[in-house]
């Protein structure tokens, strides 16, 4: 197989030795698909060359060692950078979040919790009040309580939220427009073989890091996990440019990106194994075994760096690491499955609503004002979120509070009812205390918070600031789960003589753990929206450290996936890929139709004939006119117009670069010079100008299928080999061509979707 570099092999002619590789041949245009087969061949060629030279000298041996170990070096550097950046993002986001409430006078750089860390004024009932932390009302008005200070706090909260959101969207618009959104749909497409130049660049990395902190701090209903995957992939891309093995080969670069995305999830959740499984299941397209080990290594290095920076002061990686040891009972599977159904329903609803909203943003005039849109959404979020204490606080803190079970040491509003339930075990002198209304107000506030978050996340995901989806979905699920858990607990308490509860629960004992319900609900909602399976279960159980809860988690996640799949097969990321029209051939979908290759190939009946090049008949002028008049990416080369026998395939970009290069470097190439793709120049009259040899850019072994090949096999070939185009022959003669875009359009047509929505090549 010929490659774009023209490397010398033993059987080529002597003249080939004198041909140096043309610079630029073998690279790709922006928004085009790579050719996986060609890239893998190039890599094998490079490896062979290095290996053959290995024994010549010590220097060559060192070079071969360096080449073999450069993969590990890239992955280590990526893990280090991802861990460090995640630590920076966590610390800065925490601080800026608390800046909306007040400042720490003794040390400006501490957030609320760190400010009161050393103080002895904190009491058991009010654990976060200390004199060093002053709210804005206290600083400006001089008093901490009262309606005036409430209004001042409200006003300052909205002011800070709006200014952070405005800063974030301005920075994104001016410096790096690719830094907005989650990033995972585009990374999925890039890993399947698409090129988006600048998407994983230095400016995108810097702006994404800085604006992610601002977006999270502005109180919008978004998370930072998806953007952290983008940040980690940017680090991987940047470091891979230091090593020629990865910078010159697009297929090898994608191996590094798979490992980088595992590191990204690992630092976001504190779940290295979950990160590797996430990279395998959600993000990567091809995942060879070598990538598995490297991804795990990257995830561990990133987790280690984050742990040593120690952002939260308690040696855990994520804020809501809770440890349970209470058992669950068999009858609790019913509410867990109900939570799974809720997760699936919510996931299907969210995907439909969000895609409809994003489509409206794309196609109508409404999408022309992104800055105004962000400010409006931030204002509405801040105004509605402040009165409710559950939505005012940081979403991660809310999740942690919901996951934490009520024990004697907890004093949150959610646990106020416990003391009057365990009447016989309370150490109060007065057992006839009236029922605490604390839990009812908490339940109302939670219900309102649930509705608010469900509505706002639909409008927030897809804004022109970095926005992730994991934390809001987990919050929605945790709120729903906690409500169900408290309801079941009250049911068990007041009806402890029912058969179900009599078997397992004793009077007064805590047999129901509402925190576990919150955890199961969070997993169900996240599974319903992203349709992850194994990786989600592993992430949640690494988050909580509870091996005994794998069965409830699996039951809920499976139920939510089945319920969600009943409404539509795609998760949120695939839906966004389809919305944007990226050329992503999904490996999970099956092609079940019985069409043949000749029904999909181009040219169709009414189309102009196939644009082909003959192997030695064309002049430079004719070749340039073919390229200028058509917009195809490649042209098959045939022997002659009479016998349409196939010689090879030549790409448009390679042809243009080769002609430019020849015009510059070789003398005597004129417009009527003959262009030949054969080994030897054709016989020409004596006064004709010097012919141009383009054999080195010709792909001599393009993939072909016959016109009667079923499309199932063709789609399978495209998926497994990563092809861009495939030629169709009939009785040995060239008939037409099928490209990846044709296949995607055909699949869209078969599924009754709009085939014109596939935009890229």
């Amino acid at each position, binding site marked *: 197989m010929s490659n774009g570099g023209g490397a010398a092999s033993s059987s080529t002619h002597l003249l080939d030795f004198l041909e140096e590789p043309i610079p630029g041949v073998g690279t790709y245009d922006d928004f085009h698909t790579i050719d996986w087969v060609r890239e893998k061949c190039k890599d094998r060629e490079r490896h062979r060359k290095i290996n053959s030279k290995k024994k010549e000298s010590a220097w060559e041996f060192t070079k071969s060692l360096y080449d073999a170990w450069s993969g590990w070096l890239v992955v280590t550097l990526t893990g280090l950078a991802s861990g460090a950046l995640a630590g920076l993002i966590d610390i800065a986001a925490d*601080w800026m979040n608390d800046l909306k409430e007040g400042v720490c006078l003794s040390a400006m*750089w501490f957030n609320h919790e760190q400010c009161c860390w050393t103080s002895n004024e904190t009491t058991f009932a009010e654990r976060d009040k200390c004199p060093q932390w002053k709210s804005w009302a206290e600083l400006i008005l001089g008093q901490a309580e009262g309606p005036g200070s409430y209004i001042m706090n409200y006003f300052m909260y909205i002011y800070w939220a709006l200014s952070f959101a405005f*800063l974030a969207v301005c920075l994104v618009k001016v410096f790096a427009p690719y830094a907005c959104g989650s990033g995972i749909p585009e990374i999925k497409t890039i890993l399947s073989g698409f090129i988006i130049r600048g998407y994983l660049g230095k400016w995108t990395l810097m702006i994404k890091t800085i604006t992610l902190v601002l977006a999270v701090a502005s109180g919008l209903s978004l998370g930072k996990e998806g953007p952290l995957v983008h940040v980690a992939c940017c680090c991987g891309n940047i470091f891979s440019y230091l090593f020629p093995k990865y910078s010159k080969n697009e297929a090898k670069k994608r191996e590094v990106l798979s490992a980088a995305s595992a590191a990204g999830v690992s630092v976001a959740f504190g779940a290295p194994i979950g990160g590797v499984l996430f990279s395998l299941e959600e993000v990567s397209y091809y995942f060879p075994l070598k990538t598995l080990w490297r991804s795990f290594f990257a995830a561990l290095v990133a987790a280690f760096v984050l742990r040593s920076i*120690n952002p939260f002061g308690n040696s855990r990686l994520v804020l809501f690491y809770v440890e349970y040891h209470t058992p669950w009972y068999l009858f609790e599977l019913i509410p867990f499955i109900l939570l799974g159904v809720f997760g699936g329903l919510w996931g299907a609803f969210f995907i439909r609503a969000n895609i409809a909203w994003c489509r409206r943003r794309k196609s109508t005039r409404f999408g022309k004002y992104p800055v105004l849109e962000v400010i409006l959404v931030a204002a509405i979020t801040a105004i509605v979120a402040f009165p409710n204490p559950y939505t005012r606080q940081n979403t991660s803190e809310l999740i942690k509070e919901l996951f934490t079970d009520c024990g004697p040491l907890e004093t949150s509003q959610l646990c106020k009812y416990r003391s009057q339930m365990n009447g016989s075990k309370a150490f*109060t002198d007065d057992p006839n205390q009236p029922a605490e209304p604390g839990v009812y107000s908490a339940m109302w506030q939670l219900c309102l918070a649930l509705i608010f978050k469900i509505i706002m996340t639909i409008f927030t995901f897809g804004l022109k600031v970095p926005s992730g989806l994991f934390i809001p979905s987990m919050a929605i699920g945790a709120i729903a789960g906690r409500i169900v858990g408290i309801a079941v607990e009250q049911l068990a308490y007041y009806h402890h003589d029912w058969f179900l509860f009599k078997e397992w629960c004793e009077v007064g004992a805590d047999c129901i753990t509402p925190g576990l319900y919150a955890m199961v609900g969070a997993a169900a909602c996240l599974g319903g929206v992203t349709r992850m399976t194994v990786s989600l279960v592993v992430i949640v159980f690494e988050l909580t450290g509870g091996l005994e809860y794998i069965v409830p988690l699996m039951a809920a996640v499976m139920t939510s996936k089945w319920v969600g799949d009943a409404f539509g097969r795609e998760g949120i990321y695939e839906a966004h890929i389809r919305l944007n029209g990226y050329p992503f051939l999904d490996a999970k979908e099956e092609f079940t139709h019985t069409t043949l290759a000749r029904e999909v190939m181009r040219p169709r009946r009414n189309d102009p004939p196939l644009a082909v090049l003959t192997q030695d008949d064309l002049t430079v002028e004719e070749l340039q006119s073919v390229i200028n008049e058509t917009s195809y990416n490649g042209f098959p080369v045939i022997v002659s117009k009479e016998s349409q026998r196939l010689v090879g395939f030549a790409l448009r970009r390679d042809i243009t670069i080769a002609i*430019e290069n020849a015009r510059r470097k070789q003398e005597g190439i004129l417009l009527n010079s003959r262009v030949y793709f054969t080994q030897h120049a054709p016989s020409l009259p004596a006064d004709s100008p010097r012919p141009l040899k383009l054999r080195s850019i010709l792909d001599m072994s393009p993939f072909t299928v016959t016109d009667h090949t079923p499309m199932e096999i063709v789609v399978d070939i495209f998926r497994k080999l990563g092809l861009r185009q495939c030629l169709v022959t009939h009785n040995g003669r060239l008939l037409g061509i099928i490209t990846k875009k044709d296949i995607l359009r055909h699949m869209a047509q078969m599924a009754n979707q709009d085939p014109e929505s596939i935009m890229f090549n």
Partner: protein
Amino acid sequence: MKLVLAAEAACLACLVLLSQAAAAKNSEDVRCKCICPPYRGYEGHIYKQNVSLKDCNCLHVVEPMPVDGKDVEAYCLRCECKYEERSSGTIKFTIIMYLSILGLLLLYMVYLTLLEPMLKRRLFGHSQLIQSDDDAGDQQPFANAHNVLNRSHSRPNMLNKVEHAQQRWRRQVQEQRKSVFDRHVVLS
């Protein structure tokens, strides 16, 4: 932009090193925190002290002990003591670095959006030349070939190189802005 990358890498390395170095330097950064729930009429209380890991238990930290001798064990059984440490140096360094980078970016943004067009408008003749450079779209099929082959040319003048890199970066950002914000082609 290689300078930015190098500066960023240096900052990250400093962050990691500093975090290791400042880990246990400050004695105020370690503490043992004991939370004791209400017990028989005594209210719940939180006790904090700067003790080391081996002394982090109820007997060393809870002072003054609210209950008498025989109840001490029962009281201490309900208390939960945890050893925590943080690194205030890392937090301070991170916040200051973040705010300075944010400040620099804001200044650069103000310069790009407000000051530079004003300066260009003053030098009216120049502005037309620069604008026509920006409008050269790469619609021609051979434009990419020019870009690819031009990369091998090296400009001897340092200032020209910086100017050239900045112009190229701005063209890229303008292209990105067109795809994302105007045509809505990428990133919904």
